């Protein structure tokens, strides 16, 4: 099979890579500021990204609800499960703007007050401020898409972006995508010229083995998100940050789903003893936050024989159980409700086992400043692929706005480049053509599977060390080399999957470089050769950047 190069010259002021929550909000705001905008989306913006079918918690600060002093909310956020790896300056800027975006969403038709008034629930400790707005996000993607289109944004669906295009001075001047639209019999490369690019391609799933490794797509966050934004930003010269600190989500064991805060129950062991110290009687106002606070609880209890940990909703009031089922639908977990019903699981009588899922990159990735700008001129990032800030749906939405506002000013100093003849497009085409031309070869799943095993064995949660990480790094280099020499794609869909795996292999190597450099144990980063936590590395974030095409440079910097 051959490869076409699209001859239509797409060009815009601002190109948004990924049409999830962050991407659509960036597109909306850039268009409102007068920029011409293209969104390149791997799937379809109406149902793509980790917020594809919904969400029900929007992290925000409301002066009317929380009071004029924002600092108690800042404190609560930065001491949360993922708050320790955020720059506090970005948290403050985000919170100050967050409720404006809530109001924007309501004006787009998203149901931010499904029960009438503003309701703050979930992810909260007893007696402490609650900062997640309960909302009904099941129509958020179609409504954001409608808003973007109404402002003249061009949405190119089924167009995953492969790589960024750069001017000789290093500034970004567009990107090249691969059309996977089925109406094309021949895969097609699509160059897009842009004065600025906002990366909003989401988290990196499928890097480590999931709950059932035979099923690569059984993951809580969107398995279409494979770190392509982080990988292409790195290749363009951007700094990535906090890669070595593992983050794991939690939920029902073999049906990986987000939405742990939607559950109104208590985690108990088999002997009915509560697992955590926070609550004994769950209510819709206060569920069990144990898995947010004690991230390793599920593994520890399985390893010491006191597991499993079970979500107990049997003592939850009947009306709260109904409320929970409604919450699942808002969160985008209607599939989970269907699965419970079809298999006859009655949560008023039965408990469901919970577990921690595999490590992933969320809030691990591109370093940005308070405008969402990376260190590469013209390159911005927002959402789950950012490494020094994270607030999930709300974070993506608000930083999408910040990035768009800064990009709309940045483009005024630039003229539109012509990328049609860019050597990078030709280089990209050459490699993809080799994958398509092979009559026999390796399937992308072989590579993804081995990558996951190497990550688990050599950069896992149980143990890390210089010898394991160094060896793992060598294995991943060899895997990458073999992939380039052996991968075969039968069509555009498989070609997309091949590129995803190559991005993941690159990120795996970068993670190992960073894990080698952090010579201490901290959080879920456990070094067998440095078992202590080094006070000198408190509040120190580790960055990694391309040095030459063959080497990287790492550096610690203070949290700001």
């Amino acid at each position, binding site marked *: 099979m051959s490869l076409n190069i699209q001859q239509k010259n797409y060009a815009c002021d601002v190109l948004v890579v990924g049409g999830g929550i962050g991407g659509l909000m960036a597109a909306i705001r850039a268009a409102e500021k007068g920029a011409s905008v293209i969104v390149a989306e791997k799937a379809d913006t109406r149902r793509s990204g980790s917020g594809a079918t919904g969400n029900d918690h929007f992290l925000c600060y409301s002066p009317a609800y929380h009071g004029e002093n924002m600092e108690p909310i800042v404190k609560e956020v930065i001491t949360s499960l993922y708050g320790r790896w955020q720059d506090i300056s970005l948290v403050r800027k985000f919170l100050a703007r967050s409720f404006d975006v809530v109001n924007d969403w309501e004006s787009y038709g998203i149901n931010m007050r499904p029960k009438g008034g503003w309701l703050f629930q979930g992810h909260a400790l007893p007696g402490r401020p609650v900062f997640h707005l309960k909302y009904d996000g099941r129509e958020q993607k179609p409504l954001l898409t409608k808003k973007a289109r109404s402002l003249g944004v061009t949405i190119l669906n089924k167009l995953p972006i492969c790589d960024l295009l750069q001017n000789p001075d290093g500034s970004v001047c567009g990107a090249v995508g691969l059309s996977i639209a089925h109406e094309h019999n021949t895969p097609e490369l699509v160059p897009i010229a842009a004065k600025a690019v906002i990366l909003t391609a989401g988290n990196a799933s499928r890097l480590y083995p999931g709950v059932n490794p035979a099923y690569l797509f059984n993951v809580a966050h969107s398995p279409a998100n494979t770190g392509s934004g982080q990988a292409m930003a790195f290749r363009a010269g951007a700094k990535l940050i906090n890669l070595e600190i593992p983050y794991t989500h939690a939920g029902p064991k073999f049906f990986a789903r987000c939405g742990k805060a939607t559950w109104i129950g208590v985690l108990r062991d088999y002997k009915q003893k509560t697992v955590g110290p926070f609550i004994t009687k769950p209510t819709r106002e206060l569920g069990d936050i144990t898995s947010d606070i004690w991230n390793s609880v599920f593994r520890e209890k399985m390893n010491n024989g006191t597991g499993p940990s079970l979500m107990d909703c049997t003592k939850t009031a009947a009306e709260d159980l109904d409320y929970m089922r409604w919450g699942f639908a808002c969160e985008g977990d209607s599939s989970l409700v269907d699965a419970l019903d079809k298999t006859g699981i009655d949560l008023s009588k039965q408990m*469901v086992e919970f577990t921690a899922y595999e490590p992933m990159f969320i809030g691990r990735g591109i370093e940005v400043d308070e405008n969402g700008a990376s260190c590469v001129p013209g390159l911005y990032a927002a959402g789950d692929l950012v490494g020094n800030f994270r607030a999930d749906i709300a974070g993506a939405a608000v930083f999408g706005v910040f990035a768009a506002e800064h990009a709309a000013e940045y483009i005024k100093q630039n003229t539109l480049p012509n990328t049609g003849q860019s050597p990078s497009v030709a280089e990209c085409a050459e490699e993809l053509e080799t994958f398509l031309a092979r009559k026999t070869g390796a399937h992308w799943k072989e590579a993804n599977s081995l990558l996951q095993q190497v990550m688990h064995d050599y950069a896992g949660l149980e143990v890390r060390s210089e010898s394991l990480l160094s060896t793992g790094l060598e294995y991943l280099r060899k895997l990458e080399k073999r992939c380039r020499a052996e991968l075969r794609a039968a069509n555009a869909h498989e070609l997309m999957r091949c590129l995803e795996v190559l991005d993941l292999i690159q990120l795996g190597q970068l993670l190992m470089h960073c894990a080698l450099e952090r010579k201490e144990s901290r959080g879920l980063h456990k070094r067998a050769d440095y078992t202590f936590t080094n006070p000198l590395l408190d509040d120190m974030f580790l960055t990694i950047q391309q040095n030459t095409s063959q080497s990287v440079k790492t550096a610690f910097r203070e949290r700001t």
Partner: protein
Amino acid sequence: MPPVINPETCTVCGKCASICPMDILAVTNSGSGKSIAVLYPEECWHCNACVLDCPVQAVELRHPLSHMLLSVDTLAPAHDHEENI
């Protein structure tokens, strides 16, 4: 095959194939006419988008055994012999 399309009610409008986040569905044209094919069932995320957005409710999701929810019906009585652990 996670999404199961009911050929009796499906109008082959193609919306499910358009919006599938994993690109596993496609409109195909065979000798007997157009239909929706599940090309990559093992890449299904079980997100329910195809079920939610089908205008004629022709899609159902089958949850594979590999994704079984683990439920416990009977618990040990409280205050069991914890010292044995």
